């Protein structure tokens, strides 16, 4: 495994987006993972639609039938991948633009820009997470966002942080050590793409510590899924 790795350096990460005041983080996490997988499969970065999932994906959790994707009221990335397998794929942002509100489904199968081949769940093992990241591209992850409302920059590594997950984001890379602005303390970290616009965090990104002595900080290792896209010429 390389000491540092960042898919932004290899073109597999689309632009930072903004979910607005809508609980659709799950669709941004899922679309970001498919954008990366589709780039690896086709060599082309296509910016994909979240609104199609907000409007059309009401897929339910196979082990919890009362928990279904519900647009601005929340969802789950693996439910979204299941939906995309069944729907045939995802339209581009251009063809199905984001409104930030729940709407009627306007999915047009003839406009599919990317399709899911399969998806899988990565165990709570930071080496396995790093290996899947390097091999399959950016990963859809859950996290506890308690410290993110006030986060401005640096490597977040709270002494105390809950592990119940309430936000879906995209893991795009990792660093061996990052100097924290306030204290010159080196901490290996994950690089996370958020969906709150570029005027939040570090140009829309968040860094959280990783490593054996701070494993699964804020639950970051505990809901990780990877998706592969169908190869189209």
């Amino acid at each position: 495994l390389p000491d540092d790795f960042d898919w932004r350096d290899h073109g597999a990460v689309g632009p930072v987006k903004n979910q607005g005041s809508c609980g659709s983080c799950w669709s941004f996490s899922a679309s970001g993972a498919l954008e990366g997988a589709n780039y690896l499969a086709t060599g082309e970065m296509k910016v994909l639609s979240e609104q199609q999932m907000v409007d059309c994906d009401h897929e339910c959790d196979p082990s919890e039938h009362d928990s279904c994707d519900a647009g601005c009221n929340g969802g789950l990335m693996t439910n979204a991948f299941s939906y995309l397998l069944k729907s045939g794929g995802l339209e581009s942002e251009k063809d199905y633009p984001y409104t930030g509100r729940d709407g009627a489904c306007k999915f047009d199968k003839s406009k599919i820009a990317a399709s899911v081949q399969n998806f899988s769940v990565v165990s709570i093992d930071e080496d396995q997470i790093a290996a899947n990241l390097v091999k399959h591209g950016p990963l859809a992850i859950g996290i506890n966002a308690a410290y993110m409302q006030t986060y401005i920059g640096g490597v977040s590594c709270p002494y105390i942080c809950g592990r119940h997950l309430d936000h879906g984001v995209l893991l795009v890379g990792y660093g061996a050590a990052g100097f924290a602005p306030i204290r010159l303390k080196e901490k290996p970290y994950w690089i996370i793409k958020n969906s709150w616009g570029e005027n939040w965090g570090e140009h829309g990104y968040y860094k959280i510590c990783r490593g054996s002595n701070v494993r699964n900080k804020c639950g970051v290792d505990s809901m990780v899924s990877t998706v592969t896209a169908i190869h189209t010429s």
Partner: protein
Amino acid sequence: EEEPLIRQVVGGDDDNELELNAERHFASFVQRFGKSYRDADEHAHRLSVFKANLRRARRHQLLDPSAVHGVTKFSDLTPAEFRATYLGLRKTRRSFLRELGGSAQDAPVLPTDG
């Protein structure tokens, strides 16, 4: 040197400093993020939420010294409003683990040495 794990997280006299400067910080926050409020009551309410979030950012800074915490575009929202509006993950890890045998399958173990 290692951080002392037990830290004083409730401010002392810098509460007064924070109180004094909160209105100034709030004015620059409103301008910087283009905020507008319905009426004077709403403005006053958002100022009080903002003050509470300044204290919260200070606590976060003490509990998370390797990051920088402070005023963000969400500083006029209570934690509950923030969670309800800008997050959106419906599940906890517990139900996620149960799914491992469902439609989502385990990723094969990948080699990580060499």
